[in-house]
């Protein structure tokens, strides 16, 4: 595959189905082949299967039986779905903006230079790598209304803390608070992105007389926009699928005030063994997330700047 012919195409600018373009197409598929093959072997079949299963009743231990649209019909009258969606949306609305902003600001502060940056980076990242169950248990102790660390600290400044995990109004804020503890993961990604901003852009801006704030808005944010987009999309997707903390700490209570959609789905799939219904729930969630993601891409389209984008 020689390079000069591609240049020739570019110079003439004519659109020909050139042999070279086809070679690029081939290269595209070759490079993408690991994922495409994985899709074929491990993903596509099960995904289609789960779609088909949403039209059946499937208790897992016996073969599925076709029931047509019955699952979807039941979903319309299922008040728990409404509750689950409400809980999940509220959580997402709180956790994603707060989490992203915190992660971004922390990454910026760290990047500007602090003493002991390597230590702090690790400290912030540490919570994100502790696996779910022991951490959930520790949090339950921290959030104990009488003896927990949090309420004890609040008491010293005269505030009577709420019952957190067994309080309808405060259970979701409690989960949002816990999600902030994992700020290390998006922070790491933001840090990596900040590293990728070439210094000379900042220097050029300084020479042109830009203030710190201006440098932030005209250099940092545009150059970081692809990474911000990534964290935003994944933050939204992740927040909609949250499951383990609720499973361990509240089982969806009290009185379904923390019934996250992921938990409701899990219950249906593995506790009640209504895998068919769970599949229908999954596809509803899928559609919601897909629409949200497309919206995000569309709305942020013009604001995301790719230095290295190619004409497609």
């Amino acid at each position: 595959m020689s390079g000069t012919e591609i240049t020739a195409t570019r110079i003439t600018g004519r659109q020909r189905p050139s042999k070279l373009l086809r070679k690029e197409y081939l290269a595209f598929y070759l490079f993408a082949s690991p994922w495409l093959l994985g899709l074929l072997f491990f993903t596509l079949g099960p995904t289609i299967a789960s779609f088909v299963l949403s039209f059946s009743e499937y208790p897992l231990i016996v073969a599925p039986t076709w029931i047509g649209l019955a699952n979807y019909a039941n979903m319309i009258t299922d008040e728990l779905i409404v509750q689950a969606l409400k809980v999940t949306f509220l959580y997402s609305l709180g956790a994603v903006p707060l989490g992203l902003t915190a992660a971004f600001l922390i990454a910026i502060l760290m990047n500007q230079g602090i003493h002991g940056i390597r230590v702090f980076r690790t400290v912030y990242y540490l919570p994100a790598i502790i696996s779910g169950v022991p951490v959930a248990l520790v949090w339950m102790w921290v959030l104990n209304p009488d003896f927990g660390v949090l309420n004890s600290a609040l008491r010293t400044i005269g505030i009577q803390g709420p019952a957190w995990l067994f309080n309808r109004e405060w259970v979701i804020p409690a989960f949002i608070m816990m999600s902030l503890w994992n700020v290390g993961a998006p922070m790491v990604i933001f840090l990596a992105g900040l590293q990728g901003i070439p210094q000379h852009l900042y220097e050029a801006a300084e020479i042109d007389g830009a203030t710190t704030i201006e440098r932030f808005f005209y250099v940092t944010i545009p150059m970081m926009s692809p990474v911000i987009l990534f964290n935003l999309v994944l933050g939204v997707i992740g927040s909609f699928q949250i499951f383990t903390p609720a499973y361990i700490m509240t089982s969806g209570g009290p009185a379904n005030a923390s019934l996250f959609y992921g938990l409701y789905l899990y219950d249906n799939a593995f506790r009640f063994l209504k895998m068919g219904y769970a599949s229908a729930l999954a596809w509803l969630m899928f559609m919601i997330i897909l629409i949200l993601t497309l919206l995000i891409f569309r709305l942020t389209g013009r604001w995301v700047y790719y230095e290295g984008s190619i004409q497609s």
Partner: protein
Amino acid sequence: MRNQLNRRSFLKMAGMVTGASALALAGCAPAATPNTSAPAVAATSAPPAQQAGAPVPALLRSDAGEKDYFEKAISLFESRNPTIKVTRVYSPGQEPYTTKLDLMIAGGDPPAIYAPFSARGYRYYASKGLSQPLDDFINRDKVDMSDFFEDALKGCKYKGQYMALPLDAWPHLVIFNRDLFKKAGLPDLTTDWTDKTWDTNAYAELAKKLTDPATQTLGSRIYSSGWPAGWVFGTDWFTPDVYETGIVKTWIGDKTPQTIAAVQWVADMVLKDKTATTPAQEKSLAAANQNPFTTGKVAMYVGNIGDLSTLQQITDFDWGLAALPFPPGASLPRHWHVWIDFWSMIKGVKNLEGAWQLLKFMVSADAQKIYPIEYGPQSSLKSLANYWVEVQKKLMPKKTDQEFQTMIDAPKNEQIDLENWTINFSPIQTQAMQPMLDTVWLGEKTAEQAIKDVTPKMNQLIKDTTAGLS
């Protein structure tokens, strides 16, 4: 033109891909287990082709040290039965266990013996025709059924056939902080299960005397934050046939005044008298049943034999064991649950005889001496009660004979639970029962109001979950 070509070829490729995966999917369809929807009546169908030498897979729980005891018991079995090889498959307990079990079944390689120890009992699998009836084997080998607790045996029958055998017993008792009682000038609680002066009224009164806001001490934990709260006065939520059939059929909660009163009594201790822990306080310690009693700030509670190993580690105060209180005035017999687990067998094992030999062994006295007795809980065999006491005496040398007697009397005064002996209680519990109870504990509704309000949903859920069950 070029675009069209590409789109067409892409669609062609997509079509091929979909077709290929559909084919792959068809080939991977879950293996239909024998007798999928036919109810498991007398085994009229021929058993699957037997392989006498095939290994017997046993699905075992691997929580907190249990593995060693299972290992010991099974090794003993293998030494006595050299021709039978057991494959041990370990899994963490509760949901992961049942998921693993379900997947093994769906994958066509079910375990020969399993013990869910969780909300989904054997009856669920029996209702889908997956349980192996054991009557023929029991009769053939003349297994002594009289040694098991009657109530448990009743639960081991599904539609008149034995499909499981009881493996242990975890009774409930009142556990109290002797030091706090002494400080309040109160005598120890009774160890006599026939003492009718010890009823819930007495319990509530004692809790008041033992509550001391100055030291942040509470008289009691919440008596129960779950469905057993309806049993405290001796009545139930559903008609008694539920324990025989395993099917929750008839909701009588709103029609049973004592059930309503019981829930209100539990709530009053928490909200009105403020002599019991709130669910909020419980929640932070309730993960894996860690309990506030160990903090030394709660005077008594309804605990379980399983708590003993934790209680044995308490060094700050002296604690004692007592009988559960009667319903008010001892007007009705107690209605409380003893957790009983069971070994059961899934149909379709390759070495049926080997599987039976293993199951029979695991419920026999020799195996039960190892698991459950050496591990902690009581056995399901009445004859091993004294052996259990001997083992426990070494761990709790200070406990009196009366206290040990009260422990072994407990299972006789309790009955099997709703959760792991029924087929459809689990969704009812999660979607209707617990949220309803939560509103009472939160103080949002009275017991009467909450139970009345949940009745339509309860009846609907019962209807939905019993569709197809006979």
